[in-house]
């Protein structure tokens, strides 16, 4: 069909156009460096995620007693206090989401090259979920921020942020970059349902 589409404002241009005349976005039929950037951010994100789980997230001092807790220990402590719901939220946001995210991005990136048994629509949905849910991992960093500014009761009790909070925040940010670098149009490039997808696509009408 000889067209190139803008991924930001969805305007269509003649192939070879460099920048979108409507929104000024750089036009590229496919982002050729997409996978490289996905993997680069992915690896950095994973490297930050490891110390994020090993170092303490919070240091709590009550009177003379000082205790340090990593992310998982903090959640277990919450569960001991009977707050199972909140413990679940913390575990979900800071363990299940990041780990799931690493897995899903890896599967998506690998499937572009090697194909996959998962249907294209399903993979696309996975991608959207990862993009939407990734930012929610920041919740644990915010909890640490609130606690350490609120609980400053002199000699009575004090909460200070641990080193893991920095690594965790970085890990979330890097994996968000990784997900954003993924060019989701690549999922659909292996669309084999039609003999010439470009031609038939042209005649599809918009479903309202």
């Amino acid at each position, binding site marked *: 069909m000889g067209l190139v*589409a803008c991924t930001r404002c*969805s305007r*269509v241009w003649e192939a070879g156009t460099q920048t979108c005349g409507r929104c000024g976005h750089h036009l590229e039929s496919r982002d050729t460096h997409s996978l490289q950037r996905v993997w680069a951010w992915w690896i950095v994100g994973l490297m930050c995620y490891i110390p994020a789980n090993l170092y303490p997230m919070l240091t709590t001092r009550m009177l003379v007693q000082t205790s340090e807790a990593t992310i998982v220990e*903090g959640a277990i402590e919450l569960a001991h206090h009977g707050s199972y719901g909140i413990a679940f939220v913390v575990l979900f946001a800071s363990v299940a989401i990041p780990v799931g995210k690493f897995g899903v991005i890896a599967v998506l990136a690998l499937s572009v090259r090697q194909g996959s048994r998962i249907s294209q629509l399903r993979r696309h949905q996975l991608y959207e979920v990862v993009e939407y849910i990734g930012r929610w991992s920041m919740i644990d960093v915010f909890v640490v921020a609130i606690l350490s500014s609120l609980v400053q009761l002199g000699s009575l009790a004090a909460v200070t942020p641990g080193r893991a909070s920095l690594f965790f925040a970085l890990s979330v940010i890097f994996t968000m970059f990784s997900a954003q670098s993924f060019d989701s149009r690549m999922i659909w490039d292996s669309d084999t349902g039609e003999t010439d997808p470009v031609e038939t696509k042209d005649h599809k009408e918009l479903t309202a």
Partner: protein
Amino acid sequence: MHNLEDLIACPECDAVYHVEEPRVGERAVCGRCHTVLIAPRKRAGKQIIALALAVVVLIVAATVFPFLSISAAGVGRRTSVLDAALAFSDSGLLVLLTLTVAALIIFFPVLRALLVIYVLAPVVVDRRPFPGAIRAFRVSEALRPWSMAEIFAIGCAVALVKVTDLAEVHFGPAFWMFSALVVLLMAQDGFMCRYSVWKSLEK
């Protein structure tokens, strides 16, 4: 060759369609990947501007007023959103984190709301867009995943539970402002039809 202006490409999967503007309240959805392409709403522009103004007022107010206060054995402490953002500033290495948190929960949401107002205000009164409106909307769209005020609000709930067995917790005015903010931010995203905005900026 078709007139290129009448075509729309799904930004997610690159399927190309002829534009048939849906009526107000209807949505045009990509038949291949189910991404919502066009979703016009009645008076959406004014609603979004109203919401954006409310967001700015709420964030500024929530930043200044005390947010939560606790007391235990006669010792009290109150904190504002700004204090929470600056919580990491004491420990040298974590200064970076302070800036990040402040940006995510205060600066980015406010900037985004202001940019949206700047872009849409002339459009709703049928004037020419302000100079730089296109660039402003681009920045606003780029900031979308990074404005995390609503996530911060949920974080408060978690923090509260952690504190309750340590001390007595009281809600400040800013706490309720932030709760309202969460609802507004979600509504703002739901109302905005990006296709319509880009189209109106093109004219």
